């Protein structure tokens, strides 16, 4: 076992453990913090695989922006520690069934691979990566920008309070 694989398994275990903790906590703030740790784990994993840019994005966007947003919302809504589980027991059954099914699928996929498939580590320098994406995938990038526009409009309308509520608050 090389040092790399040791670190890999360590990180993988950390990710699974913290994600499991995140979905079982009754306190939402705790859950979010565990999720942040899990994202850091993933970022390290990407770094290990030779994708420093992706690792940075993971930290900046997921652990940084999105999770902070989550925390803000949790604090703004002042949700008390819930009496019920966020993830009630009745939903464990479907989740467990799904888990078993997907593990089965994974086993089948792995069993189909003969010998070992080696992934070449392609160290993607941010500049090279951006050059590539804008040269080969710029249509996709443009479409993605349209998605953001649509999502923005959607957020605006779905997030807007009904007019009646507005008036009430004004009084």
């Amino acid at each position, binding site marked *: 076992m090389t040092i790399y694989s040791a670190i890999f398994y360590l990180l993988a275990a950390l990710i699974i453990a913290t994600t499991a903790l995140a979905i079982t906590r009754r306190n939402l703030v705790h859950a979010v913090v565990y999720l942040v740790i899990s994202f850091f784990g993933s970022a390290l994993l990407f770094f290990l695989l030779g994708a420093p840019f992706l690792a940075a994005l993971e930290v900046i966007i997921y652990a940084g922006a999105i999770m902070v947003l989550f925390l803000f919302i949790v604090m703004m809504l002042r949700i008390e520690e819930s009496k019920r589980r966020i993830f009630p027991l009745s939903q464990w059954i479907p989740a467990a069934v799904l888990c078993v099914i997907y593990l089965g699928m994974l086993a089948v996929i792995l069993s189909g691979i003969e010998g070992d498939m080696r992934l070449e580590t392609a160290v993607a320098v941010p500049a090279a990566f951006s050059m590539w994406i804008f040269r*080969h*995938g710029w249509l996709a990038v443009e*479409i*993605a920008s349209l998605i953001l*526009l*649509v999502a923005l409009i*959607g957020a605006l*309308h*779905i997030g807007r309070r009904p007019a009646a509520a507005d008036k009430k608050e004004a009084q």
Partner: protein
Amino acid sequence: MNWMAFTPELTYVAMAAVFLGLSMAREDHRRDFHTALVFSAVGVGVSLASAGVTADLFAESYRVDLFSQVFKVLLACGFFLVVVLCNELSGVKRRLHPEFYLLLTTSTLALMLLVSSVHLLTIYVSLELSSYSLYVLVYLRKNRPRRESTVVHYFLIGASASAVMVFGIALLYGSTRTMYAVEMARVLPSVISQPAAAIGFVMTLAGFFFKLAVFPFHFWAPEVYEGAVNQLTTYIATASKAAAIALLVRLTALGDSSAALAQVLVVLSIVTMTVGNVSAIVQKDLKRLLAYSSVAHAGYVLIGILSMNPAGYAGAVFYSAALVTLKFTCFMVLVKVAADGANITVDELAGLHKRSPILALALMLSLFGLCGIPPTIGFIGKLLVFTAAVEKGYFTLVLIAMINVVISLYYYLLVLKAAYLTEPKAGLPPLPVSAGDRLLAGTLIVLIVGIGFYPDPVIQIARSAAAVLL
């Protein structure tokens, strides 16, 4: 780069930009309607003009060929027709009309990009763009209780389908090491026996199963059809289905060599049409009924696709054109009858033959077409699809499909009975049908019956479009 080949898409980009501007301007719903009408008419013209163009754009991730252009014309026509129906868009607040058109435009743009994309990444983001536009559009309906739950429901199923699809794409990329459809067609036959590639392939199709409302991705259909504004439901039932069929055909053509894939699709097809038809029988709400009927039709289309022969692909292309025509006719009647933008039940069609004979006739022919009674365009579509399957030896499948057709006849006739045999409730005035509406209904009637009698030109187009893929 040949920008000429990209003009239809650019037209819709311009249209989206105009409506983005209008959404910030003063409220004027007539102006919005007329702008949309002009732009979408121009869109039809541009699509027709660029119908014969072929090109490879954007580092070969985008291919303009006859197959894509046929579907673009179909999409442009579908979009234009839906805009025509928006004359009385009473289900959406006037203030929000520009947004409504804007999102409809981005969705159409996305579908157009979709039918031309030959790169899995572009396919995925286009699909998402169209889905996101629709999620927001569904929310725009006014005075609808629990519309949030409808949207969330739609979104969750859509997001799950996307998740499955992305997972599939990743597996597919892992085993073929390419994202380009052309190259994948070359590599795939040698690796399709590997579990990773096979599972990845089926999962990649999931996104389109969702669009087409194929079991088990059909759960959203009844609620969204019911919850969306009538015009939007029309759009979802016509244009968005056509694009989904196009992509399913394009992707399935890649996995052509696999008999197991055909078996998977056979199972899906049978379950889908049976679930759709049996569920439709008990529906009271007309839009719900049509939603389940769409599910059933997705099953019939799959029969053509899974035949995996030129006749089957051509049949599926023809079937999508037939579906757009027939479903649009149904919904046009629905929109006209539900003048205040409300949902209507089957019983509310009572006495339609007295209130507006031409709408009743259009409804009758479109329902006949949907159940596949000759001589309508729907009959030809079913015939092509079924003969393609029989050619490949799927007797049992066609037999099951025919039994399904018989079941579907039952609920279509229930609708017709309401329209033709029941007397209207006292005091219901004749429907105001303008000259334009009459012209539209008349044109559709002529199309439904005319192509039913003389389908050859359309079949030729469908065949040469499908030939591009092979």
